[in-house]
């Protein structure tokens, strides 16, 4: 697999590390990781960096993950790049909102590396 440039958006630095570890366990290698602690920071970063995959939390202060996703699409940043939401919110309504906002995948916390692999690899292979 060629280099996978991945943006992880989560206000928790611990969760960003856990997601990165799960991606490596899922076989994404070589992996280049960019981190953002909020939707605002993520949008700024994407103005200067190209990525292949975005993983974002939903429940974040200042700009939540759904608004980040809407802004991402509205500003036409990273077009065609798959976005997977990783969140504690797991109801059908939350999944529906994420899909409507433009997410291609949804992973519920807590998660296993195997679940990350199952959701992420097909998206990368299809991109």
């Amino acid at each position, binding site marked *: 697999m060629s280099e996978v440039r991945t943006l992880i958006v989560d206000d928790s630095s611990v969760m960003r590390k856990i997601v990165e570890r799960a991606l490596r366990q899922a076989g994404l290698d070589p992996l280049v990781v960019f981190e953002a602690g909020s939707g605002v920071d993520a949008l700024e970063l994407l103005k200067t960096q190209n990525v292949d995959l975005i993983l974002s939390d939903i429940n974040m202060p200042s700009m939540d993950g759904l608004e980040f996703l809407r802004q991402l699409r509205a500003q036409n940043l990273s077009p065609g790049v798959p976005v997977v939401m990783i969140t504690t919110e797991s109801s059908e309504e939350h999944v529906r909102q994420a899909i409507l906002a433009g997410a291609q995948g949804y992973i*519920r916390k807590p998660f296993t590396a195997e679940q990350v692999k199952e959701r992420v690899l097909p998206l990368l292979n299809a991109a």
Partner: protein
Amino acid sequence: MLLNGVRRAATARAEGSGTKEMERTMTLSLRDSVHLVSDPKNLDGSVEEVFQLMLGVNCRRYSGPVEIAEPESVTAVVGFGGVLSGACVFRSGGSAAMKIAAHMTGMEFDEIDDTVKDGIGEICNMLAGAWKGKVPDLAANCGLSVPAVITGRDYNLHVQAPEFKLHHTYQFDDASFEVTIICDGLQ
């Protein structure tokens, strides 16, 4: 004061996610299913799930109090808002908090630094999410605040006359902690 703040944040999040209309139509069914919402097994299942998947450890519930014989303890609070208002509260001694953070990150800690606080906040967040996810009506119509984490000594969290309260203690290896679900309003 802190609980009021996290509850307001959770309520705003629930309303912002477009669930207000559903909340009105769900009122009767959630009130009718209070026995499901307050089922103690849901909390035990949530704790076991979060600790097994995120830390790779098996937790067991026990009946004694958490012995915090050390100067500092760590408390994390995640508020609920929407059809249920209240909070999920995690509390442990400093050494148990550092042990949990070590399992989460693969790092070693000798003080309660920002990474430990961050990790405990996330544990509380996942516990709150897993717990409300056990009841479908609650999962869809109840928002979560971002976690607030308190460290220090000689402090108490007081809630006036909750509608119901679940308070369980758990243990893995030699670390113990307590998780409390406080419901002070159910629509």
